[in-house]
């Protein structure tokens, strides 16, 4: 098993390295120039433009730029943002907590509420509550997040003033505010973006989990378990749910990058200053250092997601473990 784990980890690292090399060169093939984007509609002399180009080595050959990037990256230096003129690691460190909070809260809701509702529906298959939740989840799945975000902001922030429309904390939250006051304030700001992100993903999770559970609940070993007189909760939780988790495990691997990317649209509409927004602005601005920093993080999470899924399968499924 350890040998398998080592081989799988080596494969993951090789995938990551290949992805980064490809991304580095692909980014530079995209039309557009980072300095042009940085300057915008403002007037700037050739001399100043050249000064910026020299500072970021934008006229150097691609292999030279790549070797510079790799050399720095191994020292933990991802370069300096062209748009922000600040170290990329600093920019990402500033925004990572906000993204982790948003992505983490969404994932947490998906894998608790979404799973629970899916299981609950499956064991009540065909009943009114199942049909109702199926309809609700289909509607939730069909609602575009960008529309939902705008509607929620308008309704609950602009009209009803129940929640703040934008930001992570209140502007006049005292610097001496205690942890509970701060947490409550952040929580109020978190509600609308998390609800916007979760409505679609919880609906999807419910659908997956319901179908997986229904499939498992039909199997002979479940009938046997019930025939043995086991309590229904034991049958559902211990015997059925474990086997119905495989598709969900795959989903977890696929959704892990949400932790780092959040949702660009939700971050934008709710002024949630996270990594997703940073990366999107960097794409528009051809801010190569920030783009590479984001690419490293997202690629790592994608590869890590795959690795975790594989390990999870091995733990849950004895067939995989013994293969």
């Amino acid at each position, binding site marked *: 098993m350890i040998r398998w784990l080592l081989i799988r980890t080596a494969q993951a690292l090789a995938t990551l390295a290949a992805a980064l090399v490809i991304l580095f060169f692909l980014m530079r093939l995209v039309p557009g120039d980072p300095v042009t984007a940085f300057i915008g509609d403002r007037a700037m002399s050739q001399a100043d433009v050249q000064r910026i180009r020299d500072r970021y080595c934008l006229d150097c050959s691609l292999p030279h730029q790549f070797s510079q990037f790799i050399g720095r990256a191994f020292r933990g230096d991802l370069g300096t943002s062209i748009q922000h003129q600040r170290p990329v690691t600093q920019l990402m460190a500033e925004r990572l907590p906000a993204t982790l909070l948003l992505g983490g809260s969404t994932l947490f809701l998906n894998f608790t509420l979404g799973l629970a509702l899916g299981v609950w529906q499956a064991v009540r298959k065909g009943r009114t509550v199942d049909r109702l939740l199926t309809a609700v989840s289909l509607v939730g799945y069909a609602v575009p997040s960008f529309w939902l975000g705008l509607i929620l902001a308008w309704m609950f922030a602009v009209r009803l003033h129940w929640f703040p429309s934008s930001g992570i*904390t209140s502007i006049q939250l005292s610097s001496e505010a205690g942890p509970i006051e701060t947490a409550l304030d952040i929580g109020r700001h978190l509600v609308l973006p998390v609800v916007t992100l979760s409505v679609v993903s919880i609906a999807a999770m419910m659908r997956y989990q319901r179908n997986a559970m229904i499939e498992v609940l039909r199997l002979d070993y479940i009938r046997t378990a019930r025939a043995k007189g086991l309590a229904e909760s034991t049958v559902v939780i211990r015997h059925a749910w474990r086997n119905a988790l495989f598709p969900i495990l795959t989903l977890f691997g696929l959704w892990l990058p949400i932790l780092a990317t959040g949702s660009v649209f939700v971050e934008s509409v709710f002024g949630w200053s996270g990594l997703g927004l940073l990366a999107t602005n960097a794409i528009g601005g051809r801010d190569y250092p920030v783009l590479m920093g984001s690419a490293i993080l997202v690629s790592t999470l994608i590869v890590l997601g795959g690795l975790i899924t594989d390990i999870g399968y091995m733990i849950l499924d004895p067939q995989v473990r013994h293969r």
Partner: protein
Amino acid sequence: MPRSRSRIAVASCALLLTSTVLLPAQRQTNDHGVVIIATGADAPAPVPTVATFGTNWEVANLLFLRLAEMGPTLTSVGDRGFIPALARAWNRRDSLTLVFELDPRALWHDGRPVTAADVIFTFARSQEIPDLASALRRVKSVSAEGDHRVIFRFVRFYPEQLYDATHQMLIMPQHLLKDIPLDSLPTSAFAQKPVGNGPFRWVRRVPGQLIELAAFDRFFLGRPKIDRVYFRVASDPDARLNLLLAGEADVAQSLSLPAEDRVRQDSNLVVTAVPSGGITYALFNQKANGDRGKPHPILSDPVVRRALILALDRPQMARSVYGGHTSVPDGPVPQMFAWVQAPGERIVPSDTARARAMLASAGWLDHDRDGILDKNGIPFELSVNTPNRTPQRPMLAQQMQARLLPLGIKLNVRLMEYEVSQTMRDSGQFDIDMASANLDPTPSGWDWSWSCANVAKKRQNVGSYCNPEIDSLLLKAQSSRDPVVHYRRILALIRSDAPAIFLSSPANVIGVNKRYASHPFRPEMLWLSLRHWSVTPGQQLPRDRVTSTP
């Protein structure tokens, strides 16, 4: 004794009542408060020479002062019309020497006095930045006579000497910056917590979220009535509008037409239009698309260019996109320096019949009867490169397309990412480019985009428009005591040569909370007058009573 005790008790109760009831009431009737500005970008280094645009620059302008500010007329020429700032007075020794008397009361936020050495240091620093050095190229030297007298010497006489000496430089503290090299400044401790000399001092920045400034109690021109200024960062225009409508922000600028309508419907808000330095225009490429060695087969003919302009009802187009606060110029004239135009001058109204006749006279007729004009086998078909960063430019391009098609002119609107459009623009790969620019408050910058000297230079005269008389007039304007005559002649030439369709000089439309008794805005730098803002007594919100964050 018991009686006197009871009197004391009554007196104490009365005092207590007064302090708990009357004092807050008194506080409520004062005109202090806070301003929360919804802004699109963060300000990680609001320091002069580092900050040149965006929120960085806006914050820097509240923290740091110039020697003098432009006056209400915004005239950049001559020595009159400027308002004292760090310099309480100025005079001329001769046509090449300006002497500024610094206000001895001026202080840095750390309590040190502002001195002539700071001005000299700022000028020296400016020389390290090519653009600033270029703007100050006609300043020969800056020297001091004592602590509070600064002498600017110029290489030659020109009408914008005072403008250059004042507008181009926010004065920086020598005692804090002399040991910080320019390249290290953006990431220095100073950039994280700048020490300025302006009406507001730095309090804190929460990255990506907000910037907080506080009124500087010892500001020598009078402590502002706005105790705190917050810049609330929200990159999305809808998020900024929501902040304003939800009452979480007090001001939001650059409102689109639909956003303006929503703000107007809110009884707590008022809409203000401030002249801006922005212009939007469709630039003609006078060289062949992608080949600057050849003339453009259609657009190199000035008759054709004039006909295109004449065929469009520009005021109607501009109004439909920008609303009623826009004006249509006949040249690169934003609202901010409309003074340069002759009084009462109006643009030539649209006349499609005349436009058609002009095109016919230039040989453009529908010979093959396919609905599109042609000449020598070349169809009248042009591409319009349109960046998609804002909705306004695509809307204008589509209107042009719709209005010119009935005349037999086919425009292919190519909507593209801003960065791609800029790259194509710089390399001359366009027929028509939907351009916009934010100009400095002076027409002397016209040489940038409209002079022969800058033809085909990247980001400058990319349309390759050249009329040597304009270059000559620009030179004359720069040494004349009355440059306006020359500027007006330049405008007449531009009108005749038609290098672009000038579509709009939009105003900056701002939504403001109604509780401010006065809220003046400055066109050249919106928040410069923030220190004159006040809240209508009795209309303060709870957040106007600032107690947090020292």
